[in-house]
């Protein structure tokens, strides 16, 4: 007893420490076993050599990676101008759907129709229809660029989702807040702008982070209408070299960007949960 006291630990603390060590040990050994099994068993599969040659080919990766990185700049570019537009349009649509005045009823219908249509249609279809369809009307260059219309397709689709998230944020602010604001003499507009929206937007930041991550990947859909972004560039290498490794290279580049973003979203989400408790 006295020895344990000297170490500054109670019996309970010692027990818990033992339990923790045991848990760590078990976790480490089970992870080691799983990794070992994967490393040993997968190469034993009869087709492994072929799979390795066509999906994990070091020479092909080295050859294609610099050009893939180059092509990824196009993804970043499209993402950079689409994301702010989506945020603005999404918020406007959310506000349209939330319009209280009876005179603004058409606006509410428009907002509902917009979200229904663009959430219901697969993104790739929207990209095709807008990306080839609108320029087909006979617009002069450069206004028929697939970059412009492809981005618009992404913006429309994503703002439908983003609008719904904003709307859930607005709904999450208790309506007594609005009542209180109005009773203090604020106008509807002021109440929305200064009281409800700041809280609503804060509440939905983690969800919107997830939309950003999804958008970042869906930018690749623009490759269908011409822009040679990373996915198309990887496809070109795949065809020329008859090897799928460039796709793995593209996946690596995507992961380098999305994993930190996902972790940050998780962190925001966890912080929000803590604050709400």
């Amino acid at each position: 007893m006295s020895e344990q006291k000297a170490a500054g630990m109670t019996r309970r603390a010692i027990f818990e420490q033992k339990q923790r060590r045991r848990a760590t040990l078990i976790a480490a050994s089970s992870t080691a076993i799983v990794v070992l099994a994967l490393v040993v068993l997968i190469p034993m599969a009869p087709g492994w050599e072929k799979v390795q040659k066509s999906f994990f080919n070091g020479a092909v990766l080295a050859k294609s990676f610099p050009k893939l990185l180059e092509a990824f700049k196009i993804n970043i570019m499209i993402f950079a101008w689409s994301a702010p537009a989506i945020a603005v349009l999404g918020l406007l649509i959310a506000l349209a759907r939330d319009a209280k005045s009876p005179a603004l009823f058409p606006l509410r219908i428009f907002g509902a129709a917009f979200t229904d249509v663009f959430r219901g249609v697969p993104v790739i279809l929207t990209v095709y229809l807008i990306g080839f369809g609108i320029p087909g009307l006979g617009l002069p260059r450069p206004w028929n660029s697939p970059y412009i219309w492809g981005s618009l397709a992404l913006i429309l689709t994503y703002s439908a989702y983003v609008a719904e998230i904003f709307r859930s944020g607005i709904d999450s602010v208790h309506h007594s807040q609005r009542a209180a604001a109005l009773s203090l003499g604020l106008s509807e507009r002021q109440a929305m702008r200064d009281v409800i929206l700041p809280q609503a937007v804060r509440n939905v930041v983690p969800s919107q982070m997830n939309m950003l991550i999804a958008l970042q990947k869906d930018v690749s859909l623009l490759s269908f209408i011409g822009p040679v972004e990373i996915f198309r560039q990887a496809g070109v290498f795949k065809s020329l070299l008859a090897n799928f490794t460039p796709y793995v290279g593209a996946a690596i580049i995507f992961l380098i960007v999305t994993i930190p973003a996902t972790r940050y979203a998780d962190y925001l989400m966890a912080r929000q949960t803590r604050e709400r408790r």
Partner: protein
Amino acid sequence: MKRLFTMTVATCALMATSALADGHCAAGKTLADGKFTIATGNPAYFPWVMDDAPESGKGFEAAVAYAVAGEMGFAAEDVVWVRSSFDEAIQPGAKNFDVNMQQYSITPERDEVVDFSAPYYTAPMAVLVSPGATDTAPTLAALKGLKWGAVGSTTAVAKLGDVVKPDSDLLLYGDNADVNAAMSANQIDAALFDLPTALFLSAVMIEGSKVIGQFPADEGDNPDQFGMLMEEGNPLKACVDAAITAITDNGTLAAIEAEWLQSTTGVPLIK
């Protein structure tokens, strides 16, 4: 040990199946015994396959397929058609076809992963221009200034990058139909195809477009030669090669080409 087992199984299978005439080189080497399974694109395009119906034997590749099959000792009804994408053709593992014919250009890089038969066609690359650019001169200098498109999975991409080196960025598409849409929307001035495809698109698909020139077939280090694609190490390759050589030598291949592919002599060479 594993290899020995596989070999034993294979040998047993070989001994058990001999529906084809004994001594014929394809006996027991095909996917289904006595049948010759050929893959084509989905859809398969004119003039390679007419009306997306390879079974009819109409169209250049369909006709070549039946000629090769006949040469190998298969009756027309023993030819089985399946559809495949480019990716299915090059993925590792078992294939669902004996040979795959969809204008595959033979390249050394592809040859490392799959096997190619002897070439059955040498395709010059040709320039298809949109209605607005039909008076472009067939010179490299004039072609540089155009806005270019191509199908991303073809060797045209490499050709554009190596030979034409256009001033503005390429736009690449998934298939012929999308290039067509982009050209109709005036997003691209010109696209690079093999000559028969270019002639077809200009005549039938894109009104007002024109094939303004072809690259000499011997330009660059490798001309675009089409071969039948097979799984790497397919024992059938020797038979297919022999059959293609035979129909080349006896003039059958030239006759099929004359029947299905337009005369390509009217298109000027690009200087």
